Structure formats: C-alpha cells, structure tokens
C-alpha cells in the first residue's frame, strides 16, 4: 500500500467523522423528540453516509490499480439493487393488479 504522506491523515479524519456520525445517530435516537419513522430515516441515512465514508477513508476503494473498477462496480451494484427492490415494489403495488 502506498500512501502520499507518512502520517495516515485519511484514517484519522475518517475515524473522527465516523465518531461524529455515530454520536449524531445516538443523539437522534435517544434525545430527539420526533416520530419513529423520522428517526429511522435519519439514522438510516447516517448509516449509509458512514458506510460510504469508511469505504473511501479506510478501505481505499479509489486507490490502487483497480480503484476505478471498484467504484464502478459498487455504483452498479447499488443501481441493480435499487432496480430489483424498488422496481419490484413499484410494479407490484401500482395499478389494478395490486387492488
């Protein structure tokens, strides 16, 4: 693994951001006075952001000779997953067939 600088800046930054995101999630879940659905949406989004952050900061998806391939792969996987799940729900719950 080659790093631009000796000191693992990205790891430290990533670590702090992860901590912040985690604490925000805890705060939202325990202290904020909003409905359950909203809480779920907020912490769900925070989780996705954190997963993305870690992929870049810790797992270095963009680095190395396969960086581009990895990113394209993941974007495609997300696309396929959304198509399958959201697409199926949309198709099967709209129109006459579902009612």
């Amino acid at each position, binding site marked *: 693994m080659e790093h631009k600088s000796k000191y693992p800046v990205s790891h430290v930054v990533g670590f702090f951001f992860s901590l912040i995101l985690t604490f925000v999630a805890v705060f939202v879940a325990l202290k904020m006075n909003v409905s359950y659905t909203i809480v779920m949406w907020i912490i769900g989004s925070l989780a996705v952001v954190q997963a993305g952050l870690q992929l870049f900061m810790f797992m270095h998806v963009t680095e190395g000779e396969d960086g581009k*391939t990895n990113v394209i792969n993941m974007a495609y996987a997300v696309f396929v997953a959304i198509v399958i799940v959201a697409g199926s729900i949309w198709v099967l719950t709209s129109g006459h*067939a579902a009612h």
Partner: protein
Amino acid sequence: MGIKWNEIFVGGDPLLVGSQIAIVLTVVAIVVGLTYFKKWGWLWREWLTTVDHKKIGIMYILSGVLMFFRGGIDGLLMKAQTARPEMNFLDAQHYNEIFTTHGVIMILFMAMPFLIGLMNVVVPLQIGARDVAFPQLNALSFWLFFSGAMLFNISFVVGGSPDAGWTSYFPLAGKEFSPGIGNNYYAIALQIAGLGTLMTGINFIVTILKMRAPGMTLMKMPMFTWTTLITSIIIVAAFPIFTVALALMTFDRLYGTHFFTLSSGGSDMLWANLFWLWGHPEVYIVILPAFGIFSEVIATFSRKTLFGYTSMVVSIVGIAFLSMIVWVHHFYTMDAGPAVNSFFSITTMLIAVPTGVKIFNWLFTMRKGRIQFTTAMLWALAFVPNFVIGGVTGVMLAMAAADYQYHNTLFLVAHFHYVLIPGVVFAVFAGLYYWWPKMFGFMLNEKLGKYHFWLFVIGFNVTFMPMFFLGLKGAVRRAYTYSAESGFAPLFLVSAIGSIILAIGFAVFCYNIYWSFRYAKRNVSHDPWDARTLEWMTASPVQFYNFAVVPEVKQLDAFWHMKKRGETLTLKESDIKKIHMPSNSGLPFYMAVVFGITGFFLVFEAHIAAAVAAIGIVIGLVIRSFDYNDGYYVSVDEIKRTERTWRNVEGGTENHVG
C-alpha cells in the same frame, strides 16, 4: 422414500417408448465403442478432466449442437402438429410439454453453451492470455451446466416433462395446478446449470480485466472481447435473481411454502416479475456476444477496421444498462397502471437507439470495403435485414397499448424468433465457420456451407414470416390446434413446410462437420482469413499454452498492424521462457455427477436420498480446499519443439492454404 417407481418411466406413448429405446441403444453404443477402441483413458485425460479453455469451449459447442438438435426436433414436432387444422399427432398435454422444453432448451442449453463455448475458445486468445483466470472453476462451470442440461433432458422419458411454458408462470407452475414432478425438473435443473453460468460470468470478468496482454488497454480490445465483458457483467447482475426465484419456486413446490401461490399471502405475479427481471437481461446475455461475433466477422471480411469503435462500446454499455430496466414489457397486460407501463414502454423503445447505432456501424464498416463473400460473412450479411425485422416488430410490441392486441399471439412468437435466430443462431454459425480452423486446424467446407446458409435462411423466413400474419389474424401462441373455419390453415401449412427446409439446412451443417472432419485439408495456415486479432497469431489448432511468447499490443486490430509491419512470426528462441500451466482435475466432473444425483432425487422429492447425495457435494468442496496443486511448468525445450512444427525459424509460415 417417496419415489413412485411406476411413475418414473413414462410409458404407453409410441413416440416416448421409441425415444426411450433410442436413448438406451445410443448409450450402449457409446459405451461399447469406447471400450472397443480403448478410448476410456483418452476420454478421461483429454476431455473429462481438462481445464484447457479451448477444450472446454469445444465441449460447450458440442453440447450446443446436440441441444440444437433436441430443441429443433421439438420445434419440428410442433410445426407438424399445427400443419393442418385439428391434427391428432400430439395431444394438448404433449404440445404443452414440447413448447416448454423447446423454449428452455433453445435459450439455456443451446444459445448459452454455443456462445459461452465460443467465448471460451476465443477470448483468452484475443487478449493474449494463456488461459482464463480460474481454469478449474471454468471446468466446473461447464460440468455444472452439462449436469443441469442432462437432468432437464431426461425429463421427457423419466417422470414427465415440465409443461407450464419456458416462463413457468405461477399459479399454473405451482403444486396446486401442476401436481406432477415435471416442473420440479425446471426448478432444479435450471438451478444447477445457472450456477455454472454465474461462475462463467465471474471468470470472464476477471480474465478480461486482469489478463490482457501488455499494451492492450480496454479501448484496444477486440469487439468480441468487449461484448463478452459486458455480457459477463450482466450475467453477474441478473443470474442471482433467477437463482433466488428458482429457489423460492423449489420451496413452494417441494416444501409447501407460499411465495408465489394464490392463497396464504403469496403473490403469483411476483414470480413473473422476478422471472423477467432475469429473463430480459438474459436475452441480452445471448445477443451481445453475438453482436461481438458479427463485428469480428464483418471487420475481417470487409478488410477494414470496425467503423465507430467507440460508439460501439458506448452502445453495448448502454444496452447493458437499459436491459436491466425494461422487464415489465413482458407483462404489460398484468395492468400495473399507466405510470408503470409508460415508463417501461419508453425504456424499451430507447433500446432501439444503441441497437440502431450498431447496425449503422456495421453497414459503414462494409461501405467501400472489399467484401469477401465467405460463408461466415454471408451469415453476417443475412443477419442485418432479418434482425431489423425482429427489431422493428419489437418496437411495435414495446408500445404498451398496442401490446394488448399482439400479446400472447403468434405475432410475438414470430418476433422473438426473428430476434433470436438471426441474432444468436446466425451469429453462432458465422462464428463457427470463422473460428473452426482455429479450433481444429481445418476449415469447414465453404461450398456445403453455402448450401447450409441458403437452406437455413430461406427456411427460417418461410417458417416464421407467416406467423406474423397468423398472429395478427388472432392465432394465439401455445395452442395445440385450431379449427378449419379459422382460416389459418394455409399459412400454418406454409410455415410447416418452411420448418422442413430449415431442418434440411441444419442437416447440411451436420454433414459439413462430418465431411470436413473426414476430408478437409489439414495443413491450413494459422491465419487463413487474413484476419485482424491476436487469436490468428498463433498456431491452428492452438497449442495448449496458446502463445510461446505473449505478444505486445500497440493498437486496435493488433495482429493486422503487426502483419503490416512484418513482425508477426519472428520468434527469437532466446525470448522463450518456461510457461506455467494449470493441472487437470477430475473434481469438476465429480461435482457434476453428485450435483446431478442430488438434483435427480430432489426432482422426485426423495428428500432423505437427496440429503445423503448432497454430502457428496460437501466432500467435493472439502477436497478442493485441501488441493495444493498449483500447476506445472512447460520446459523451454518442449516449447521450442512445438513451435518448430508450425513456424520456421525465420518467421515465415509453412504451407499456406487459404
């Protein structure tokens, strides 16, 4: 155990008893033949345990030929039954079974292995690699496919065929309406074969991304390699959907769950939805490699580089992307509401755009080219107009509102045969005539090839053109007969006659293989077509290590430019280094056998026997994980000796027969 032995062998019907006897006799003949000629050891060493991508490719192609034969006979039987009104050749149940096995076999066991076979033979050579990334996995892919295909094929004599259509829609395909074991074959055999395909997809993605010759950037890859890469990506995206859907179907049928049933909260349309989420990408899985084959053939025989290479790449990527978001066009009439139907209408019609780009690129490649009318090129030329008919009628079907009229008629059947036969079958024939010398070291006879071509193309049009009109007049698909008053009789008769011409064409092809195998000249050069890509740079048939020295690639059509620079065959003996090659393994074949046995017991719902057989699968996995054999080296001496048999030291080629 719950096996009802009296139900296993389907008796009574003369057609079936005849085929049972024929199968037994063929097996006996093969066994006796192998023993008599003392070929068992050869079969095991050279074929059953091989991990060589070229041999695996040849086995795929051979399976494809066999399955085309089987699927074709199914097609002919259907055409015979509908040749006249109120015929009593097949009854309704037989017709159901036959169109089901015909559809499944043609798509999954004919088109797929033909194309995967050509991919196997050609792609590693085109990118200058010694083999695929995971050679033993590749053998496993083939053997799992073969196991699944054989399991599916025995259904018509052992236990009864699936009969709910190649789409096997619920609720019809469920236990409630199809209580026999026929549809278990569908669920389980396709699962086993699908595992093999999924592994092929992974294998080729890694091979193409990781094992290209030095200097071959993505945008310098031959077009067939590009289409193989994109196809593999679609396989990896789409096949797991089918895996899951089939697993749920198996649970429903074997273990009484309610995923797709009408009662207890199941959703029958969920099956249709999942099936086509896989099924539409699947049709692009078979069409894209075919596009790649045509690109190679057209460029070679127009003696020009492919027109609009970049736009070709962009269009295949575009097609791959769009192919994932069009699946609802297969069930507009489910009536999912105007928003859904409009969305999928638009995406479907959009696919015509990149496809049109490709068609024009091929035409422009030919423009002002010095076209050589070889058999391979004839298939590519015939492909263009025939496929356009399929494409245009596809756009007609894409309009949801109009589809309410065409839906479920022979118009649709004619449409998809006009896409699949020119798109896949013509391509496979083109590819076989083109790459045959590379695989076997002799050419297929061009004259017989032309008979094959004309009979097949004319027969194809005579068979399927009338079906468009029958469909427009209201003839429904999957109906085993029709009345004399319907007025359908003349067109059905024409169509049946067409199918005989088609069949004669295929027979000429089989005869051509036989004839060329016996009589064709053997000293064909390594580059008989004066072609453009790296596979033509090495011997015909290709030596097992592919390239003595891995070539350096400087631009697209690398070999063509090397020939221009006159640097193709000069091999400095000092450049030769020992080559690392993978060892053969009997494990993939063993896995196919245990998967086949497990599958067979599952089909007959003998759960305990299946569980016992499945232990065999686990044992195979364990053996594999303790397998530390990582291949062997080919010595420099052996390489020198092999290379001297086909090129001389100065670099000229011997005995050029064109």
